C-alpha cells in the first residue's frame, strides 16, 4: 500500500470505530433514560406502565408504615397522591412531610420503588420533588381559574 492509502485506511478505521461507538452509546442512552413524573401526571395516566421512571413529591404526614423491612408511604404533590412501596432501608434524611424522589415502576396503581434517593442536606429539596409541587400548584391555579 502507498502511504496515502495507509493514511486513508487509518482514517477510515477511526471513522468506523467512532461510528460504531457512537451508535452503541446513543442506543444505550436511548434505552436507559429515566423520565420523571409527578403524582398528578401518574393520576392522569401519563406515566408508562412497564418502564422505570422517577417519582417526586412530598411524603404525606402520618402515612409511613413499616412491616419488617417493607415500607409503605404516600407521595403527594398537594393535588394528587400515589402510594409507594419500598423494601429496604430508607435514607437518613427520609422524613414525613419532606421532599422525596423514588425510582421504580408502577404496578396496579402502586409505585414499587427500587430505590429511594438519598439527599445530602436536609434543607435541600430534590429538584424533581420541587418541580412536582410547582406543577401541581400551577394546575390548581388553572383549575381555580376555570371554575371562576
Amino acid at each position, binding site marked *: *500500500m502507498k*502511504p496515502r492509502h*495507509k493514511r486513508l*485506511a*487509518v482514517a477510515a478505521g*477511526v471513522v468506523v*470505530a*467512532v461510528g460504531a*461507538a*457512537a451508535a*452503541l*452509546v446513543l442506543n*444505550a*442512552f436511548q*434505552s*436507559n*433514560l*429515566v*423520565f*420523571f413524573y409527578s403524582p398528578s401526571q401518574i393520576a392522569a395516566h401519563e406515566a408508562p406502565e412497564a418502564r422505570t421512571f*422517577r417519582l417526586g413529591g412530598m411524603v404525606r404526614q402520618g402515612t409511613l408504615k*413499616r412491616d*419488617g*423491612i417493607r415500607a409503605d408511604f404516600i407521595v403527594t404533590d398537594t393535588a394528587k397522591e400515589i402510594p409507594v412501596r419500598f*423494601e*429496604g*432501608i*430508607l435514607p*437518613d*434524611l427520609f422524613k414525613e412531610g419532606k421532599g422525596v424522589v423514588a*425510582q421504580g415502576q408502577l404496578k396496579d396503581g402502586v409505585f414499587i420503588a427500587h430505590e429511594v434517593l*438519598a439527599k*445530602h*442536606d*436536609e434543607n*435541600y429539596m*430534590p*429538584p*424533581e420533588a420541587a*418541580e412536582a409541587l410547582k406543577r401541581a400548584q400551577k394546575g390548581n391555579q388553572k383549575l381555580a381559574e376555570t371554575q371562576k
Partner: protein
Amino acid sequence: MIPELGHFALWLALGIAAVMGTLPMLGAHRNRGDWMALARPSARALFALVGFAFLCLAASFVGNDFSVLYVASNSNSTLPLHYRITAVWGGHEGSILLWLLMLTFWSFAVASFSKHLPEKVTARILAVMGWLAFGFLLFVLATSNPFDRLFPVPSEGRDLNPLLQDPGMVIHPPMLYMGYVGLSVAFAFAVAALIGGNLDAQWARWTRPWTTAAWIFLTLGIALGSGWAYYELGWGGWWFWDPVENASFMPWLVATALIHSLAVTEKRNSFKNWTVLLAIVAFSLSLLGTFLVRSGVLSSVHAFATDPRRGLFILAFLVIVIGSSLALYAWRAPSVGLGARFALLSRETLLLGNNVLLVVACGAVLLGTLYPLALDAMNLGKISVGPPYFETVFVPLLTPLVFLMGVGPLSRWKHAELPDLASRLKWAAGATVAATLLAAWLKGGIGIVGAVGLAMAFWIVASLVTDLFERLRPAGGVRTGVLHRARQIPRAVLGMMLAHFGIAVFIFGVTMVRTGEVERDVRMAIGDTTEIGETVFTFRGVREVAGPNYRALRGRVEVTENGKPVTTLYPEKRIYPATQTTLTEASIEPGFTRDLYVSLGEPANGGAWIVRVYVKPFIDWIWGGCLLMALGGLVAATDRRYRAKVRATSTASITAGASPA
C-alpha cells in the same frame, strides 16, 4: 484583623497575577529578558500571598472566629481541632481558595523546576498560569470572599456538614484539586507552545512528567472520593455515576489519553496536533467539572453555591478560557505539521486506538452528564441517566481498550508485523483463556460479563509477564545477569507496567464485587442471626454512646466465619445536634479477599433494627488497583531522562526503536 490581612493578601496577589500574565508574555514576544525574568519571582510571590491568605482563614477556623461569615457557616466550637482545620475547604469559598492555592503551588513548582527550559518557554508558561490565577482570584474577590464579616457576631457556628467530618474528607479534596489544577500545567505548556510555535518532541518530553504528576493526584483523588462514598454514605456502593463523580472522571479519561499521546509525540514526534488538543480539552474538562460542581447546577454534597453570580462567573471564565485556547489552536495548529509517518500496524496506531476509545468513553460520560442538565435548562422536562447507561457503554468500550493494552507495549514503533505479534502473544492468550475457564469452573455462576471481566484482568497480567520475560531474557549473545537486565529497564517502562497491572487489579476487583457481592437488608431482633455463605452475623443490640459533637446509637454485631469468631462490628447511627442531622456510620471489617459491611437502618419495634449486611468480595482491590496506577505514575514521572539537561538535538527518534512508551 487576621481575616483582613488575608483579604488584603488576595488583592495583592491579584495585582501580581496581572503582572505575571502580561509582562513575561510580552517580553517573550519582544525578546526583553528583563520582562521575562519577572515570571519566576511573580510565581513565587503569588504562592506566598495565596498561601498566607489560606493560613489566615485556617487561623480564623482554629480560633473559632465566628465573626467571619464563612467560619460561622462551616464550623462550631465543639468541632474537634483537626476537623476545624479541614473545614477550611468544607464550603464553597474555602474550597475555591484551596483551588487557587493549588494553582499557585503548581506555578511555583513550574518556576522552581524549569531551570532546564529556555527562558522564553518558561515565561510564556508562567504567563498563562498567571492569567488563570488572575481569573480565579477575581472570582474569589468578586463573588466568593471567604473573609466576609458577619454582624452581629453569632455565639456559635452552624457546624460542618457531618458527612464531611471524616478522615477521608481531609485528603480527598486537596488530592483531587491537585489533579484538577495540575492539568493547568499541561494546558499552559500547550498554549505556550502554540504561541511560541515550538511544538516538538522536546516539548513533549518537558510536558510528560507534569501531566503524569497531575494524573497521579487525580487518580488518588478520585479513588479517595470513591472510598469515602463506600464507607461514609452507608449503602456500600463505590461508584454511583453521579454527575459530580463524572465531573472528575472525564478529565481523568482525557488525561490518560494525553499521557499516551504524549508518549507518541515524544518518541516519534507525531500526533502533535492531537496532543495539544487533548491538553486543552483535559484542562477545559477540569474547569467544566469545577463549574458543574460549584455552581449549584448539580445538587449534591459538593454543591455549596446558591448564588447565581458565581455560576455565571465560572461559566464566563470557562467560555473565555476554552474559547480563546481553541481559537488559538485553530489558528496555530495547521503550522504544527504532521510528524513522522507510521505503518498501519505499529505502536502509533495502537496508541491511536487507545486515544479514540478513551475520548469516546469521555464523550459518552459527557453526554450522560450534560444532556439531562441541558434538557432541564431548556425546560424540556426532567430526566435522569442512571448507572445502567454508563455500564452498558463502558463494558464494550473497555474490552478493546484492554486488548490493546496487552498488544501495544509489545509492538514496535513505526512498523510492526502481525505474525510476530501473534507468536509473541500466543502464550499470553492461551494463559488468559485457561485462567478464565479455571476461575469460572472454581467459582461458578459468574456469567458472561463476569467471564469477560476476569479475562480482561488475566490478559493484562499475562501480556505484562510476556513483556517482562522478553526484557529479562538474554539477547544478542551478551551475557549479563537477570538483575542487571532488570536494572536496564527504564523507569518509564516499569511505571507503565505497574500502572497497567493496577488496571488489572482494579478490573479484577470490580468483576468480583459485581458477580459475588451479597447485600441483605434484614430485620434483626437481639440475638438474631443472618447467614451469608459461611459467614454468620449475630445482632447483639444497640446502646447509646456520646461522641465529641454528636450522640450515637451503637449497634454490636458479632461475626463468625466457618464457626470461628472473626470480628465484632459496631455500626452507628449518629445525631449531630448542631445541624440536627442523622448520619449512618457503617462498620467495616476489611480483608484481602472480602469486606464485611454492616450498617444500621431504622429501629423496628421491640428493640429490633433493620440492619444492612453486606459481604463484598475483593472490593479493596478496586482502590488497591488505583493505588498501583498512581504508584506506576510516580515511578514513570521520576524517569531519569526528564531530569536530564536539554541537549542540543533531540535524541528521541534515534532511541525510539528500542525504548518504549
